[in-house]
């Protein structure tokens, strides 16, 4: 059997029959419930909090109950509970804990918080030129952008809005405190991020802190850093009352107050000489909300692959992330890529039109090849097949006929996207330092011990398949429980499309070692540590060198029909050609392709989320519309096999890539249909009307 041949997922049954237990489904003895007292203003000082009297069975947990009132993420600037000041609407001030939910709500309705309100900042525009609003900034050059010989300049501005992860299972954790040990159970992507946050905020040694993942109902980045904040709160609550405390958000709370995709503004300026690009300047700004969180890392990912699939000789990238009093923004599948790649791909389309060249032919002139240098002046060490992918996409989509036929209100658009697998630069080597373990028991069953979580993406099936395939044993002899930090080593967070490629490769190597000892009658433990490939050269201060271990690539075409009266957009077909190395499982990959396309379609043309004076306006399923089955186009997808030497069986990253290229292709298709430039996402009928009728 070929490694890519599909198998059935190993975790479907309990999910289908409803027996699988998500955090809200698990019974705990003496369970207490918690609700969050939140700031109702975007910025100001807390003058006082007046709690009602005469309530029994209510416990208030606030900043005074936390040993160190800081949530450890990359830095420690976010408080576990707002103490003297608040910086956004919804910032947690306290947890109200009790056994009777109705009692908690009655109590909360009578709490009065007194503020001294201050002037907040709510847009990128207001931040311009104010150094005190800057969270982070970067600038790097390639070639020489300052002494170009050019005869034409083409400049455009692009903006994107919020996007909500909208995992189907809301954020939820339970904290317990028993015999000196604090345990967090729940819905999460990164058990060790939570553990490290608890280690920082609690006065407890490492061996008295335990994090256990429960079945997780989708995450998409939304459960990367945010659960660390909740965990610090419920841990403090559990420690205070000595009983389990459950904090599960209701949907509106989740949509209004948890992290979203960063709104962005990009300006791209191309310098041309005789119709060829001789240089490009790229400037991007992100709205990070009040705390840094992961914002700077998102900004870096947006910048580092800024030249996309193209070889641009002279280049300058500049990016700034701003501090505002909007909701704090964070990780979401694509992690900066969806914003920057929308801007770049639209720019390339518009530039092609400006030069009167077919956008596919125009792109082919600049496709990067093996040996070329990336935006960060790192050499592409792998083979790159963009030309073949373009050929394949043209065949699959019938692009040439469709772009030439010019049917009224019909359009076709394309995008070409790179996505770097794993952490940026030397992150895997210097920050994550992933460790995995395999344990073969006396009966010959093999346990996978990693901190990578199954959140729907298929990690359990894919990683089990890698190990079973190397060992040449039945996949049902592999045991892979949800991670428990008392048992599994830190193989890193479940993020950055790194699970299959990086953790999978560690397991691949561990399994090769274990294979030689499978005949041993005793228990055998094999541990494997991450080794950084020697072709990776990276300078984090200058952002120079190989920004990623390897790149995955997508070529996407979208077809749309636009209603000439209402400007309603119907996306009829999406065509995708993907280079993700060797797919470990075609069915799992298809799950990522289809799911990424659905989320990308939402980002491109449906999911409007706005904020007014710091308050999210689209906070429910009825006001924030995501694709349903009826909204989905027909999806046609193909893969190009391009094994990666340091991926398990040649696998590269796949999870995020599939989302990134969809919105730009749709935007290009709308432009093709209407002849107007579309420089904002999402593209709604209202936006089209605004552009067309202007």
């Amino acid at each position, binding site marked *: 059997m070929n490694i890519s041949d*599909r198998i*059935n*997922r190993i*975790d*479907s*049954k*309990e*999910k*289908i*029959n*409803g*027996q*699988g*237990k*998500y955090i*809200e*489904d698990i*019974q705990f003895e003496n369970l207490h419930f918690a609700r969050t007292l939140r700031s109702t203003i975007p910025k100001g000082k807390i003058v006082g909090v007046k709690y009602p009297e005469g309530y029994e069975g209510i416990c208030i947990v606030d900043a005074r109950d936390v040993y160190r009132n800081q949530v450890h993420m990359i830095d420690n600037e976010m408080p576990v509970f707002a103490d003297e000041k608040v910086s956004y609407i919804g910032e947690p001030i306290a947890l109200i804990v009790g056994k009777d939910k109705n009692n908690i709500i009655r109590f909360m309705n009578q709490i009065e918080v007194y503020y001294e309100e201050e002037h907040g900042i709510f847009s990128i525009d207001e931040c311009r030129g104010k150094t005190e609003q800057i969270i982070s900034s970067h600038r790097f050059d390639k070639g020489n952008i300052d002494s170009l010989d050019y005869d034409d300049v083409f400049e455009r501005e692009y903006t994107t809005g919020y996007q909500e*992860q*909208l*995992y*189907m*299972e*809301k954020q939820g954790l339970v904290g317990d405190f028993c015999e000196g040990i604090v345990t967090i159970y729940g819905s999460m992507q990164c058990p060790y991020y939570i553990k490290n946050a608890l280690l920082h905020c609690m006065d407890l040694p490492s061996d008295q802190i335990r994090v256990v993942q429960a*079945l*997780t*109902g*989708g*995450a*998409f980045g939304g459960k990367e850093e945010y659960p660390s904040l909740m965990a610090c709160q419920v841990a403090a609550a559990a420690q205070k009352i000595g009983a389990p405390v459950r904090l599960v958000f*209701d*949907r*509106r709370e989740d949509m209004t107050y948890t992290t979203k995709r960063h709104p962005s503004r990009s300006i791209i300026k191309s310098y041309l000489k005789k119709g060829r690009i001789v240089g490009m300047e790229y400037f991007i700004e992100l709205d990070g909300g009040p705390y840094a969180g992961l914002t700077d890392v998102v900004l870096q990912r947006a910048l580092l692959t800024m030249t996309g699939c193209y070889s641009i000789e002279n280049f300058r990238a500049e990016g700034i992330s701003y501090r505002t009093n909007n909701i704090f923004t964070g990780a979401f599948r694509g992690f900066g890529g969806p914003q920057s790649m929308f801007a770049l791909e639209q720019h390339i389309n518009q530039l092609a039109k400006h030069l009167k060249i077919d956008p596919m032919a125009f792109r082919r002139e600049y496709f990067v090849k093996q040996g070329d240098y990336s935006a960060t002046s790192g050499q592409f060490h792998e083979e790159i097949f963009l030309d073949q992918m373009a050929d394949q996409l043209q065949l699959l989509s019938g692009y040439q006929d469709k772009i030439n036929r010019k049917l009224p209100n019909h359009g076709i658009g394309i995008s070409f996207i790179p996505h770097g697998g794993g952490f940026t630069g030397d992150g895997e080597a210097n920050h994550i330092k992933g460790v995995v373990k395999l344990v073969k028991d006396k009966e010959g069953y093999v346990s996978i011990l990693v901190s990578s979580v199954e*959140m*729907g*993406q*298929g990690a359990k099936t894919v990683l089990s398949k890698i190990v079973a395939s190397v060992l040449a044993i039945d996949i049902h002899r592999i045991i892979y429980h949800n991670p428990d930090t008392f048992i599994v080593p830190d193989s890193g967070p479940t993020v950055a499309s790194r699970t299959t490629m990086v953790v999978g490769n560690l397991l691949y190597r561990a399994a090769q070692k274990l294979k030689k000892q499978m005949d041993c009658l005793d228990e055998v433990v094999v541990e494997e540590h991450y080794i950084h490939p020697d072709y990776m050269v990276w300078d984090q201060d200058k952002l120079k060198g190989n920004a990623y271990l390897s790149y995955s690539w997508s070529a996407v075409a979208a077809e749309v029909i636009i209603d000439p009266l209402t400007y309603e957009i119907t996306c009829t077909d999406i065509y995708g050609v993907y280079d993700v190395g060797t797919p470990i499982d075609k*069915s*799992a990959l*298809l*799950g990522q*392709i*289809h*799911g*990424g*396309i*659905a*989320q990308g379609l939402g980002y491109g043309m449906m999911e409007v989320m706005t904020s007014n004076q710091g308050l999210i306006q689209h906070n*429910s*399923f*009825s006001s924030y519309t*995501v*694709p*349903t*089955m*009826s909204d*989905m186009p027909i*999806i046609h997808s193909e893969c190009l096999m391009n094994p990666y030497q340091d991926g398990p069986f040649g696998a590269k990253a796949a999870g995020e890539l599939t989302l990134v290229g969809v919105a730009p292709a749709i935007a290009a298709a709308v432009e093709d249909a209407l002849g107007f430039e579309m420089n904002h996402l999402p593209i709604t009928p209202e936006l089209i009307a605004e552009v067309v009728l202007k």
Partner: protein
Amino acid sequence: MMIEFELNGEKVKIESTLSMRLLDVIRNDFNLTGTKEGCSEGECGACIVFLDDQIVNSCMVPMSNVIGRRIETIEGFSKTERYQIIERAFIEEGAVQCGFCTPGMIMATESILRKGGPITDELIKEGLSGNICRCTGYQTIYNAVQAVLKEVQAHV
């Protein structure tokens, strides 16, 4: 007050207010947690159950509407033969990812089948468009329902 109804084929009684949500009664009083709460406003379909022969979003149904009626949840339906066909199709088509929407999808699929008559592509899409899935992009779910139809029709 005491409310009597039929739950997964058994007569049950429960002390409840008339305005209590059916979803909470199923999950909290009977510990049937296969029915999920996704949106709390009747938009996502994760909490779908059968009320007599109709599917309903149980987050939108007050207990006053349940008195003397039949409720079937995923726990009850999963004991049927037809469930086995649907389960197999969902597994084989790779229609399950995070799984949170899945029990609701299964109930909506069964509802399409129970309606009887010719089942068109449009009917499937309409029948499942009240169920939001954020993982799969729906195509494998659609394929699974097609596979179920094929098998069910072969048995007729």
